[in-house]
């Protein structure tokens, strides 16, 4: 038992000899929970997960004997937790609209029973290692929850419960560990969130994470088990991109961490996801989703913890052999929480007030992404996608620049695109993906062998058009050759017909890989045929006026993912349109009616 010495915002200095760094403590009459982050003789510095208002020096402090842990077991899915895994829905039922302090409810429901089916070939006497599957619980109609031996345990199986209904607290197995002492296993176990969960070995990443967003999947792909960042100024669309990923990506489980962002954004998910259908399982989307919500007005220290709680739950599902996506919105708010605590501890700031360990903490966090062979020999992955909110939209600031060095996929959002309402406002010059080569074989098999070539061609056109646009802004469009004006037009077609994709459009919100390829292919076909006509002397102005271009921009919303064949037929229309031109211009034009570019008879 110790006592409070000083209270400085969320940082409380206590007298508590013998406590370990990282240990949880209960503080004051309100029983606020905190975490020891520094020791100095008999004094400990504690960061507290709740507001410290009304605490006074002299109040009691008790060590809880364990670090910050997450509870892992059936009942996580569909839930919303705060940054230290308190169940917000139960808290709402207990205490109403505003959060009261010191209410420490268990993350998992203790009353609810689950139907457990023991693994058929486990027999008492056999050895079971940490991470192996004890049995299963059908958590939702489409999700089998594999009950694991805690990774740090293992030994001889003494007893395994028969099939039946159990609460998470009931013992379902007994094991004698290496030291000979027996342990009781339950449907859930705890794991310290700041320690990565172990696995057998890392595997190479190679399968794209399909998000249904063309600019992401086709142009800057992310792989399952990869790391991505979405930096962008306010209002550029980071949250929308992450919500789209949560909706549409082909993962088994999605964990959405609202880290220091808006309450309404989480309500949006809570209200809409139960009514949306998972395109892969046909079940309500909420059944594969789990939310961690520490909004901007909630205590800042719990915000710092939230991304670790989120990724630990992600690793837990990975260890069951699933593909998990963890999105964190926003990692900048996490870094600010870190900075605030560092500042109150008087640690030396290095860049914009951030402590020196910012970069290493960020790198360690993203390192928890990956494809692994689990301890049970299964394949699982955690894909990490972090939003970054640079102050003033300046990408050279510390959090963005360190993150950029760490991630392999970088979806840079641009204010000027967002201002034009070009969404997703992913800037094709500032973004990158180191996974293009690794993703290409998958696309060649699942979409088209020419995928990589088309992708490169489109990016070339976009880049060339950006350069030409500079020229136009200096000297006007008349300075361009007909071919160059056609490049500008074609890039416009790619922008509007392919890159731009409204999350709000019922048809276009999700675009299958096949449709992504066909759309791009058709638009490049228009470009190719147009270029050819120009060499035959067709005035560019005539090409610019063909109504086909307007149709091409609307193909994305005109054809659903189940109408790929019909969409392909548009190639015939392109062919017919351009053939008509060809017929008119195939013969040498009569000398009297020479038409020059840009001019046209009414």
């Amino acid at each position, binding site marked *: 038992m110790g006592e409070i*010495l000083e*209270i*400085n*915002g969320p940082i409380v200095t206590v007298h508590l000899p013998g406590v370990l760094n990282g240990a949880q403590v209960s503080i004051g009459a309100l029983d606020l929970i905190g975490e020891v982050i520094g020791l100095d003789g008999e004094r400990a510095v504690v960061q507290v997960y709740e*507001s*410290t*208002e*009304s605490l*006074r*020096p*002299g109040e009691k402090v008790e060590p809880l004997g364990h670090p910050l842990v997450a509870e892992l077991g059936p009942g996580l899915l569909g839930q919303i937790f705060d940054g230290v895994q308190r169940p*917000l829905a139960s*808290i*709402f039922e207990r205490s*109403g*609209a*505003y*959060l*009261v302090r010191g209410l420490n409810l268990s993350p998992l429901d203790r009353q609810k029973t689950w139907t457990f089916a023991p693994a058929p070939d486990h027999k008492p006497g056999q050895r079971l290692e940490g991470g192996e599957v004890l049995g299963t619980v059908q958590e939702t109609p489409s999700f089998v929850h594999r009950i694991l031996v805690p990774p740090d345990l293992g030994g001889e199986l003494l007893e395994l419960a028969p099939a039946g209904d159990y609460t998470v607290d009931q013992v379902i197995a007994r094991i004698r560990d290496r030291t000979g002492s027996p342990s009781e296993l339950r449907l859930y176990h705890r794991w310290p969130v700041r320690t990565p969960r172990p696995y057998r070995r890392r595997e190479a990443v190679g399968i794209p994470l399909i998000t249904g967003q063309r600019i992401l999947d086709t142009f800057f792909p992310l792989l399952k088990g990869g790391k991505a960042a979405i930096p962008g100024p*306010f*209002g550029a669309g980071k949250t929308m991109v992450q919500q789209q990923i949560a909706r549409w990506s082909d993962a088994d489980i999605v964990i959405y961490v609202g880290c*220091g962002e*808006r*309450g*309404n954004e*989480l*309500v949006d998910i*809570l209200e809409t996801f139960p009514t949306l259908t998972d395109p892969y399982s046909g079940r309500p989307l909420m059944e594969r989703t789990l939310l961690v919500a520490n*909004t*901007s*007005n*909630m205590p*800042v220290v719990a915000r710092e913890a939230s991304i670790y709680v989120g990724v630990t739950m992600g690793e837990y599902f990975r260890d069951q052999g699933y593909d998990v996506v963890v999105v964190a919105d926003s990692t900048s708010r996490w870094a*600010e929480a870190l*900075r*605030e605590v560092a*500042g109150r501890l008087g640690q030396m700031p290095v860049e*914009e*007030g951030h402590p020196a360990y910012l970069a290493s903490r960020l790198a360690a966090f993203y390192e928890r992404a990956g494809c692994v062979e689990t301890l049970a020999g299964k394949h699982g992955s955690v894909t990490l996608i972090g939003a970054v*909110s640079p*102050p*003033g*939209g300046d990408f050279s600031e510390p959090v963005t620049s360190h993150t950029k060095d760490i991630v392999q996929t970088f979806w840079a959002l641009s*204010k000027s695109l*967002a*201002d*034009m*309402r*070009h969404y997703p406002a992913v800037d094709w010059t500032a973004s990158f993906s180191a996974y293009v080569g690794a993703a290409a074989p998958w696309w060649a098999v699942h979409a088209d062998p020419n995928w990589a070539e088309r992708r490169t061609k489109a990016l070339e056109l976009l880049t060339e058009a950006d350069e030409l646009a500079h020229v136009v*802004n200096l*000297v*006007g*469009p*008349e300075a361009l050759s007909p071919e160059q004006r056609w490049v500008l037009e074609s890039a416009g077609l790619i922008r509007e017909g392919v890159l731009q994709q409204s999350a*709000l459009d019922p048809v276009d919100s999700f675009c299958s890989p096949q449709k992504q390829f066909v759309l791009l292919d058709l638009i490049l076909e228009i470009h190719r045929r147009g270029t050819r006509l120009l060499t035959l002397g067709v005035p560019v102005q005539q090409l610019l006026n063909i*109504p086909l271009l*307007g149709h091409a*921009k*609307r193909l994305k*919303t005109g054809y659903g993912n189940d109408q790929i064949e019909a969409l392909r037929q548009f190639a015939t229309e392109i062919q017919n349109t351009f053939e008509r031109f060809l017929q008119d211009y195939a013969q040498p034009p009569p000398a009297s009616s020479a038409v020059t570019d840009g001019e046209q008879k009414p």
Partner: protein
Amino acid sequence: MTGKEYRMACAARGGLLFMRGVPGVALGGRVQVRDHRNHKRNGQVIRTSNDLILVQVFEGTENLGLDTTWVRFLDAPFEITLSPDLLGRVFSGIGQPRDHRPPLIAALKRNVNGAPMNPVARAYPREFIQTGISTIDCLNSLVRGQKLPLFSGSGLPHNRLAAQIVRQARLLGEAEGNFAVVFGAMGISHDDARFFQESFETSGVLRNVVMFINLADDPPIERLILPRTALTVAEYLAFDLNRHVLVVLSDMTHYAEALREVATAKGDVPARKGYPGYLYSDLAEIYERAGRIKERSGSITLIPVVSMPSDDITHPIPDLTGYITEGQIVLSRELHNRSLYPPINIPPSLSRLMKDGIGAAHTREDHPRIASQLYASYAHALEVRMLASIIGAEDLSESDRQYLNFADDFEQRFVNQAEDEDRSIIDTLTLAWDILSQLPPETLSRLTEADLARYHHWTPVAMEEL
């Protein structure tokens, strides 16, 4: 302890009073400070240990002598008295009457810091508010429970715009609503305060208004508590009395400057431009108090005014505000200098909650697409205008000239409107189509062919007249 007065001040600077050797004082507790002339000041404990206590003094620490300052720890948090009689009253930032009427007496008191709303308790805002201002209603729609700031600059008419919104805001199809206005003034001039007061009076809403006033020549530290007091009252009106509350806070920049002053005095590590790293969380504690709650009928819609120092939108105060609020309405000096009112700068303005508050169920089916199209066409038109300024309008192509005319028309007829002009959303949409019909339908790819067939009245003849 509450009865005892201590004379143990050891330092006073920047609104902070440092006290030695008063044991067991609670964080956040209210403090009464008596100076050498027996004048009382109000303070709050912001850091505490048995050796040293930091008190933030709302009236400032000017003219405090260390030996002649007496401090009483009231052992209670900062609270405000709540009753329906608040309506029609004027208070200071700490809730003391400023209208020469007696203080409120009621049993209900609440801590002005409030508590964070459980995100699960929120109801998503979806009810369209018609402000009668085309650029807001059509392009950046406001919904009940939204927090939508006005980003402005010195000399721009943000106060007139805020007052117009307060006068005209109403829900479609709802008669005289059960509304209230909470107005918080931080560091604004006497003239601006009077302007609001008169505007409330002439529109006859004064008896539904509660005002919290801290003027430019009032002590700045009080601005730190003013928005919290104002929002505690707003929460009471909205969630106890079921009112739809519109909160206007002007000007949040003065608030943030006061925060910086205290942070500097405390020696907090600065992040950008001297503002402390916790400015984001601090502003969020204020802004996130807007919203709606499940199964309660009231709401808090928040319109903070943020003046951008040197018109710089990347300055930490507008920047962090934009990262918290659900969009922003940005005013433009350029449009203002061209005598356009309201001078709303369309490209950087945004309403994030509009997507769920417009369309067939709320306004009209084509609304989302026409808004998106106007944005896209206007963005293109502005590029053309740039080009025209370089190469001259004569050298523009025919299609570019159409865009040039579109931009002018859009600004003059759509953006521009009178301060007492209250356009219905249908009138606004009709006007939008009218202006868009100057552009050829092929270029309007954000609209569906059905929209175009129904509303677009493009006549190629018009092109020849150009």
